[in-house]
């Protein structure tokens, strides 16, 4: 697989580390909602198809990336900086 890093350009996947399934939101650290914490820590959508995930370019610029990748074909559809996604999701 070739992942196109927004900073470094197209690079082999061996330069990157898969971190986790994307689209998950950590509950407020003060929250004592056990179900919400369980869902965040242990539950996964595990999609067969287009899958949002977080990778890190650990062998390059070290940025955290949000990658949209198809888990059936391994085709990479979109790569953006994870922090930009995070900003967009934060309530105003």
């Amino acid at each position, binding site marked *: *697989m070739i992942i196109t890093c927004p900073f470094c350009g197209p690079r*082999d*996947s*061996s330069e990157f*580390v*898969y971190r986790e*399934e994307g689209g998950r939101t950590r509950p407020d650290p003060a929250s004592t909602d*056990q*179900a919400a914490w*369980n*869902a965040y*820590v*242990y*539950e*996964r*959508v*595990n*999609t*067969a198809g287009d*899958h949002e*995930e977080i990778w890190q370019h650990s062998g390059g610029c070290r940025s955290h990336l949000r990658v949209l*990748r198809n*888990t*059936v*074909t*391994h085709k990479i559809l979109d790569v953006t900086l994870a922090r930009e996604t995070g900003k967009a999701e934060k309530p105003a």
Partner: protein
Amino acid sequence: MREYSAYTLLKNALSGNRDWKPAWRKPDPKPSYDVIVIGGGGHGVSTAYYLAKEHGVTNVAVLEKGYLGSGNVGRNTTAVRSNYLLPENHRFYEHSMDLWENLSYDLNYNVMFSQRGCLNLAHTPGQLDEYIRRGNALRHSGIDSELMSVAQIKKLVPALDTSGSARFPILGGVMQWSAGTARHDAVAWGYARGADRRGVDIIENCEVTGFLRDGDQVTGVTTSRGEIRAKKVAVAVAGSTGRVMKLAGIETMPIESQVLQAFVSESLKPILDTVLTFGMGHFYAAQSDKGGLVYGGALDGYNSYAQRGSLPLVEEVHSEMLALFPSFASLRVLRSWGGLCDMSMDGSPIITTGPLPGMYLNAGWCYGGFKATPASGWCFAWTIAKDEPHALNAPFTLDRFQRGILIDDKGQGATPNLH
């Protein structure tokens, strides 16, 4: 008269081998069954076998999307061992070992179970300490475990680079002599035949496309060969667990599907007569009875349903092999493949009633499901027949994640790609 014996072999040889029965029938699905098992892999067919044999439940169908044994049971690295750290795992995997030891006789089918031992190599003093701890834990549970010196290891596996100048010098190892290998195809075929002879319908090329529901209650499945109703529906589909559970409206599971690759080399004369694991990375190898080395390494490390891996892992596995066996550099690789692994959040399996009424789930085997095949089926059959887990699989429930009672043998946390 047992179906396979020296006598029947001779008799059929004299009559030109025309009178053998097929190992299992090819029945059409009936409209309803007492139990449907989704998934004709090792765990599915062993579940059906023990339902019939131990609990007298014979009105059972096993539904398989492809052909029997076409998934991970037909292609894995065949290691059978019980050398875990935690007592829940000791009890479960030792039960599996007990069943393995009598399996060929029980099934009247030679599964070629070969107790050639499993040796974990240590390359740092810290790792050796950790192995000693695990060995002691095993011995407390009555499971054999023996610490081996470099001299003993050198004698056992002369091809290993045991010199101090190796890339990762070997400091010792821990051996489970009762571990070994079995012939994976024979395990699937033997269980399938045993289940079939007791009345179980094994229905191949029958893909489940949805679940029939009456409120919450699961009452059957829709398939590519029509609707089939059942009082109980059991799911044993390994890497496809996420996809099948979504058909039942369950959107998330504590499971990620990842790809694991394995490799077979060209045939060699006997050179490795134990199952060997490398400690400074992730590499394990055994030699098959045909002479090929069967070996593998770590997961590729990302979610995948593709049943194929990528090249960086191929390079990593072979570099680890050569760190142990420099002489294998001229060996040619015959074939490689990638399989779907249902990686659970604590690295341990799930054998449970639910999560819906009328449904039973067997999943989360990570990449160690083959050795568990007998105990998995045995415990799952018990759970289905009695609507409650046996003491051996009671710790392996789905709600252990909510309750915080994880069975994390490696202490790795909820990071499936590192288990």
